[in-house]
């Protein structure tokens, strides 16, 4: 049963699951989708030239299909069916328990109407946007760029140490980092309180949102740092030296030479980390959405209503809304990326 909601929450729970990958039944993985489109365009352009020559191995249509079939069956079972199932139960009053679990009734768009008017949902949406803005767009982006910028000319053990530490935060499993942060922020015997000399301060209750924002910056900065390191390395040294020779300041060099070169990287990075953060389920492992819903971002909200609260139909509807918001974000960035080339 829990599988039913998987398309939406799965994307959220696996925060650092690489660049989206070819999963995602919807268009959650924006760049992946674009690549696919490009490839498709290219291959159709190529096809007429070597039509008839495409069957290089000589398998024939049927045997070739047989090789692909197992993969397609798996995709159908684990991606297509749950996605369609989610769409279906989104328009029913399906519940985990009770009468509605046996005989779900068709309720049309009631779930969607209810969500749009639901203060809890709107609050979750607001919290999610705040979470994305501060922890991803500003936090991870800014810190990642700053680290990459600062480490540019640093070589040797200092660089390796910083990179390893930052990467470590990224590659540790969610459950472990959640435990580490709970231990760090614990009210009675937390490391942070011991360091600051503020015994008894309950960070997760007093500053829940700030805590998970800082947590997510810490967690995800590695990706931005690596991406920006690569981007900065691609700026031709002669252009930087030209700027130096004409007496440009660091800021002028950044604005006139470096930023125009890495602009595409900034947009791509912001798109990826925005979507990952939007769908991130890890805060649940630290605060479970509490206290009193103050850290209940959308993925957590969906989990709490659909699985804990048993309102599967409503949860499915919210999942679809979330997917649509993801799409809007992706399209917005992609537009920006294409526009000013």
């Amino acid at each position, binding site marked *: 049963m829990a599988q039913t909601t998987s398309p939406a929450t799965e994307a959220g729970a696996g925060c650092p699951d690489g660049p989206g990958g070819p999963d995602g039944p919807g268009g959650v993985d924006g760049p992946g989708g674009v690549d696919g489109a490009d490839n498709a365009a290219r291959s159709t352009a190529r096809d007429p030239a070597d039509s008839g020559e495409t069957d290089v191995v000589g398998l024939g249509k049927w045997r070739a299909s047989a090789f692909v079939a197992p993969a397609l069956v798996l995709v159908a079972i684990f991606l297509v069916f749950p996605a369609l199932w989610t769409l279906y139960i989104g328009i029913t009053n399906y519940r985990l328990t009770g009468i509605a679990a046996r005989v779900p009734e068709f309720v049309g768009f009631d779930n969607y109407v209810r969500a749009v008017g639901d203060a809890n949902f709107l609050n979750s949406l607001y919290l999610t946007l705040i979470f994305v803005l501060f922890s991803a767009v500003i936090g991870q982006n800014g810190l990642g760029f700053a680290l990459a910028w600062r480490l540019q000319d640093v070589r040797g053990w200092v660089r390796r140490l910083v990179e390893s530490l930052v990467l470590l935060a990224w590659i540790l499993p969610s459950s472990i980092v959640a435990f580490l942060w709970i231990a760090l922020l614990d009210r009675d015997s937390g490391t942070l309180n011991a360091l600051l000399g503020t015994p008894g301060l309950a960070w997760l209750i007093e500053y829940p949102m700030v805590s998970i924002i800082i947590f997510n910056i810490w967690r995800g900065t590695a990706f931005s740092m690596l991406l920006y390191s690569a981007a900065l390395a691609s700026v*031709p040294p*002669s*252009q930087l*030296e*030209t*700027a*130096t*020779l*004409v*007496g*440009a300041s660091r800021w*002028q060099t950044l604005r*006139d*030479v470096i930023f*125009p*070169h890495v602009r595409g990287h900034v947009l791509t990075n912001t798109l990826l980390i925005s979507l990952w953060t939007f769908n991130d389920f890890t805060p649940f492992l630290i605060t479970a959405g509490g206290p009193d819903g103050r850290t209940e971002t959308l993925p957590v909200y969906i989990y709490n209503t659909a699985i804990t609260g048993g309102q599967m139909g409503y949860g499915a509807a919210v999942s679809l809304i979330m997917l649509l918001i993801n799409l809007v974000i992706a399209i917005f960035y992609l537009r920006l990326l294409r526009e000013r080339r």
Partner: protein
Amino acid sequence: MAEIELVGLSKVYPGDVRAVDSLDLTIPDHEFFALLGPSGCGKTTLLRTIAGLEAATEGQVRIGGEDVTALPPGKRDLAMVFQDYALFPHMTVVDNIAYPLRVKGKPKDERREAASAAGDELSLSGLMERRPAELSGGQQQRVALARAVACRPRVFLFDEPLSNLDARLRLEARSFLKKLQKELGVTTVFVTHDQAEALAMADRIAVMDKGKIRQVGTPKEVFQRPVNTFVANFIGSTPMNLLPGVVSGDVVQIAGQELPLPADVRDAVSAGQEVVFGARPEYLVFSPSSVPESLQGEVTVVENLGTAALVTLEAEGLSVAVTVPEGAEPELGDKGWVTTTPGRVLIYDGADGELVGSRVPAATAA
């Protein structure tokens, strides 16, 4: 416009790699000066040290009498053109040319005016609103030059600016660049690994090897009278013949044969001394029949140079190259005799490769 003066300049990289080794050099005002050498000889490092992109380990860089060693590149009032031109791809031609002025905080009108003046000078007037990607290699190179010209610096530094052009365009750019430099009169230091380019363009050339200058002189001096075997070998489109021999009275014994020892060095060498007999293929005369005071050999290679042929003779394991005018080319396997042109023979010490009698200003250097 200013004189450049390098005093005991060294650049040492970690691991005691001396890229530039205690170098003294003065480049007078208005001069077009070439730094020439094989790759890794330190010529680019020297240029970058003058620019301030590399910090000097020891010594001084003086521009216009002022010590600029400690000044950042932006304060040295010089402009550099890079091999890849380093144009900003996101800026139009006019913005690229005006960029140095923008950094200097000049008002927009003045910037555009200076940029279009520099653009006109380099015949870019129709291309000012284009992006670098829409220009050909030659045009990009002129944009890079225009950017250097527009800010009216005291010194131009060119780092192999012609190497990215194709052969024909390179020839055009050579004369164009030389003319431009003469018109502007800006002191120019030019790095190249192409000896023909240096000979064609420069007022004076410094030939570098392993961080040291091996010879400084006008193209004529460097070509006609290389002061050591390194320069002799490096300069010239056909390498100079450097034949090991032993002095014996008035002759040098080479591969069991004898060639006359030039009169002007007879006092500078002693009998039995090992020397290197240097003569350019262009200054040797080929004869198909036996002549006195010549080196005899068998023709093994004939290379066509267009108006002449480069003939290689083998004489007891030694090869001698000589140019033969068109129409007189011998056949492979023919016997041939080679005689020297008086005053065009250079004798180098066999031990250190330095020119014998180089302290005496010779008539050949005229």
